[in-house]
């Protein structure tokens, strides 16, 4: 019973978040907090721009989303499948096919995320295009 509770809370949070992101632009609305890392250090983290990217996607604007956070846009289909798999696991006790990745793949994924975070802070071409929104101002 308690496990259903956690699932319900997480699902409601997710759906509320998506609705808010459909309605409000995180770039201009005070509803969404700024990234704490960016706020305190001025650095971009691997996730910076992902809220704006999802907002753009919910508005049907893929180029804008891609410019905000290419990594998030690339990973969203897999994240979506993974989340459905987690719900499947919750009720059926096993994940959906393809969810047991080899450890090496997960480590590679982790490296990609960290390297993306480093690369988008580099102040020279072409890496500076990875910063949120940078490729919109070409």
């Amino acid at each position: 019973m308690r496990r259903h509770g956690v699932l319900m809370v997480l699902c409601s949070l997710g759906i509320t978040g998506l609705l808010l992101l459909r309605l409000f632009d995180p770039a201009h609305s005070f509803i969404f907090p700024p990234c704490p890392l960016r706020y305190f250090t001025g650095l971009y983290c691997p996730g910076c721009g992902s809220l704006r990217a999802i907002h753009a996607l919910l508005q049907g604007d893929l180029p804008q989303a891609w410019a905000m956070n290419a990594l998030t846009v690339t990973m969203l289909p897999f994240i979506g499948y993974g989340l459905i798999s987690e719900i499947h696991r919750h009720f059926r006790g096993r994940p959906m096919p393809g969810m047991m990745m080899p450890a090496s793949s997960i480590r590679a994924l982790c490296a990609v995320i960290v390297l993306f975070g480093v690369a988008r802070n580099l102040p020279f071409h072409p890496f500076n295009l990875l910063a949120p929104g940078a490729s919109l101002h070409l």
Partner: protein
Amino acid sequence: VVLPPGTTIQNYLVFAIVTTVLCCLPAGIPAIVYAAQVNGKLQAGDVAGAKAASDNAKMWCWISFGLGLGVFVVYGILAMVGLIGSLHRH
């Protein structure tokens, strides 16, 4: 990865990635590393080790999620205080 029938050990990879990429929190990185450990130990047949790594992955996912939620709550309070303050000035 071939598991003994009926054995699945949750690696929380999906939640680790969601909290890392969507909440932009460095605490998601250890969660991903432990997720990799879960699958690595399962591959090596070390079910107990995988279970321990799974618990660590879960803990880091919640830390990451909690930090994100904490930032959201603190930001919400500050935004409200700012809003009320600006209303008073007008």
